[in-house]
């Protein structure tokens, strides 16, 4: 066996071990360990991606001496490795970009605890990507939930604790539903390994036996993961959780945690339930409708918002709606568009959060629009980066958001029944996005007479650098999209 095949296992174990190690280290050392671990895992994932592109097929990896239905197993394909690489890049950039803010927001002796949770969160995301076993997925969903709560709460102000409690209640409800779904599915099929369940489910679907429990369990798992990834009617926890936590937490939560759950849902659709069975159930229509509603209502809430971080948070609701709309369209191409939107949204949303932190810093720490007037002149890099993020979210060519909208529209055109709603809602949502993002961009570029204190930008070489990397990532996704889309389609084929 090629040595490269060990890399998924190394990545998961390395991030977990880094988390354990951080518990005895002082905060600076913990930070370096965390950054080192994320970087190393990114490099490992890149190596794995290269290897998988060369061989062109996915493989399974035994976790122990026992073959799959008895022992644990993980599985790596192009999509998983690519996602792992992408997640590491985003996490690294978010951590570096929010580092200064983290030192201000979080009490000194709690910073090493922050890095423990960050490492555990990364390990759980990686495990969700690579797992081939439903129960393993559930265990790591638990780690993910608890660490995300800690990351929200660590700022320790009243609002963040309230937000964390809200997040915890909603998220645990989601976990509970997922667990119920897994239990019912286990009872029906007798397996926890994804490929074995898929065979059994296909048999059940053909024979029509246990039709209702099967539908209930698909519904439970979809709703559970939808709550955890903040699909429209279940998004009540989201604005506070993203709006009041420290910058790196907000960036990581919005761009990685919710995406990890969506990826798990895609995995369930392709590898557990089977795409055809899922398509024939009516749950896909529900997801489609919720996605469309989320695109409009998320944007409407964002327009009404007077706090820039909460506005960006509400915009996440709309973007999650896009992803679910793609899942709900029920074609391979739409699914690829959804995966691309995961990448595009992750890159853009973390950029927006990091840039907003800079803008707020030079406006006396206020997050209200009135105080942000002219902020882009006070911190030029953050202003430019925010504008790029906003343009990308609206869907201006050159940036990643444009490509995902284009892909969604293309996917819709080939679709008979759902073309009209998708195109109409896509259009309305774009206009709404433009209203609130352009409003903000105009606001931060409105010159003010007394051009306040300029932000102290000495010795902050890192922050502009991170913003530049974010912008570059966005432009790469926007300009060089074809190879990435090809990669995603190849990955989805390996998935099935």
């Amino acid at each position, binding site marked *: 066996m090629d040595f490269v095949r060990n890399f998924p*296992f190394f990545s998961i174990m390395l991030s977990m071990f880094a988390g354990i190690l951080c518990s005895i280290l002082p905060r600076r050392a913990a930070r370096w360990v965390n950054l080192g671990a994320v970087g190393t895992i990114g490099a490992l994932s890149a190596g794995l991606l290269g290897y998988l592109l060369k061989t062109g097929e996915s493989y399974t990896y035994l976790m122990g001496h026992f073959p799959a239905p008895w022992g644990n197993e993980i599985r790596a394909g192009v999509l998983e490795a690519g996602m792992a690489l992408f997640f590491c890049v985003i996490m690294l950039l978010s951590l570096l970009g929010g580092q200064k803010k983290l030192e201000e927001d979080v009490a000194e002796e709690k910073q090493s605890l922050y890095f*423990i949770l960050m490492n555990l969160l990364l390990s759980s995301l990686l495990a969700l990507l690579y797992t081939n076993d439903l129960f393993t997925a559930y265990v790591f969903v638990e780690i993910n939930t608890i660490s995300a709560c800690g990351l929200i709460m660590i700022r320790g102000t009243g609002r963040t604790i309230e937000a964390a409690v809200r997040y915890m209640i909603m998220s645990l409800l989601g976990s509970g539903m997922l667990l119920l779904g897994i239990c019912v599915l286990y009872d029906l099929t007798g397996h926890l390994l994804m490929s074995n369940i898929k065979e059994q489910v296909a048999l059940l679907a053909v024979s029509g036996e246990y039709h209702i429990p099967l539908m209930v369990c698909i519904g439970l798992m979809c709703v559970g993961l939808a709550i955890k990834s903040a699909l429209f009617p279940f998004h009540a926890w989201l604005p506070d959780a993203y709006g009041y936590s420290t910058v790196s937490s907000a960036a990581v939560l919005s761009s990685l945690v919710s995406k990890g759950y969506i990826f798990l849902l895609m995995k369930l659709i392709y590898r557990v339930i089977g795409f055809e069975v899922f398509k024939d159930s009516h749950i896909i229509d529900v997801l489609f409708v919720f996605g469309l509603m989320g695109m409009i209502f998320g944007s409407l809430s964002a327009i009404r918002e007077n706090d820039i971080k909460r506005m960006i948070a509400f915009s996440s609701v709309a973007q999650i709606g896009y992803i679910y709309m793609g899942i709900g369209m029920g074609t391979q191409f739409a699914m690829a568009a959804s995966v691309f939107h995961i990448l595009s949204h992750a890159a853009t949303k973390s950029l927006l959060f990091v840039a907003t932190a800079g803008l707020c810093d030079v406006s006396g720490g206020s997050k209200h629009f009135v105080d942000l007037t002219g902020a882009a002149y006070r911190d030029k890099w953050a202003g430019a980066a925010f504008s790029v993020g906003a343009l990308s979210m609206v869907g201006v060519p050159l940036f990643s958001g444009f490509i995902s909208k284009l892909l969604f529209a293309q996917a819709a055109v080939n679709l008979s029944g759902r073309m009209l709603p998708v195109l109409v809602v896509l259009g309305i949502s774009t206009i709404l996005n433009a209203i609130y993002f352009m409003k903000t961009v105009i606001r931060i570029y409105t010159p003010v007479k007394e051009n306040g204190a300029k932000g102290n930008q000495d010795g902050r070489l890192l922050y502009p650098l991170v913003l530049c990397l974010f912008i570059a990532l966005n432009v790469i996704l926007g300009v060089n999209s074809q190879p990435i889309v090809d990669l995603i389609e190849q990955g989805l084929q390996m998935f099935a």
Partner: protein
Amino acid sequence: MSRRKSQEEYERTKAFRFWRWMSGKQDPYLGKVELVPREEPEETELTIQERMTERQMIRDKVYDIEHNKKLGVFHKIYEALAVCFCLALAGILLYTVSLLPATGVADKPVNNEVPARYIEKGLQETGAVNIVTGMILDYRAFDTFGESNVLFAATTTVLILLHSRKRAKDKQRREEESEGENDRVYEPKQDSVLQVAACVLVPVIILFGIYVILNGHLSPGGGFSGGAIIGAGLILYLSAFGFEKTEKLFTEKTYKCISFGALTTYCLAKSYSFFTGANHLESHIPLGTPGAIISSGLILILNICVGLVVACTMYTFYVMFRKGDF
């Protein structure tokens, strides 16, 4: 010798006043309890109006009746809908359960080759007489490692939420400042019934916990249950003797060292076994004779690790949720 007070001192005591009252020399209530009628303020049309509008304004401002009415209606509808929703969900789930394969039927889907191999070959392949332990710590050890990390993450989160922000070096000041918030000051120290009971029970409980952990691969039990027993013993000890005594044994540093050591051992041991297993290399860990205390390869070590993590987690949770900390 009788202690006589001087006349001046005596006059200030209550006894003196009582005597004076008894002998009728002074009525303490005289001029103090009669009701003096309050002077009626001059009411004109203007002041009345002013008062009324003021009251109206305060009422409008504070209570916002219109909005509250709407809110009240909304809450009633909300509650009714929530109850309906929960009942509907419960109904759906119960209906689903009634359609699931019946329990106790031989050809249930769950009775397939997976449990068959666990039961038939479990002892031979893992060396553990307790099949459940063999399953969670050998066949599916990766999941269990995740499970221990759930506990680790939970403890970290609780530490974030409840750990005191003040550093240990200004301990003195901390104790002075937060006397009311700290159980160190107000804990029941001299509860001898509890102490005697604890003296008898704690060693037995902890020994039993150790027994359950060490025999996890031979008899029912294992790291999770044994760790919980040890944690309960530590908690009893803490409630009987207070922080002063337990600090000799268990501080934050102890917690860090134990959980780091246990999780690292688990991580390294299992990484070795995963790596050799996946690469089809031979594992050099002997399984030993089934039934002996030192047998079944890594399971004993992993049980000890899990037990330590669980005990630490339970004790730390208890300490954190009490007032004051480590």
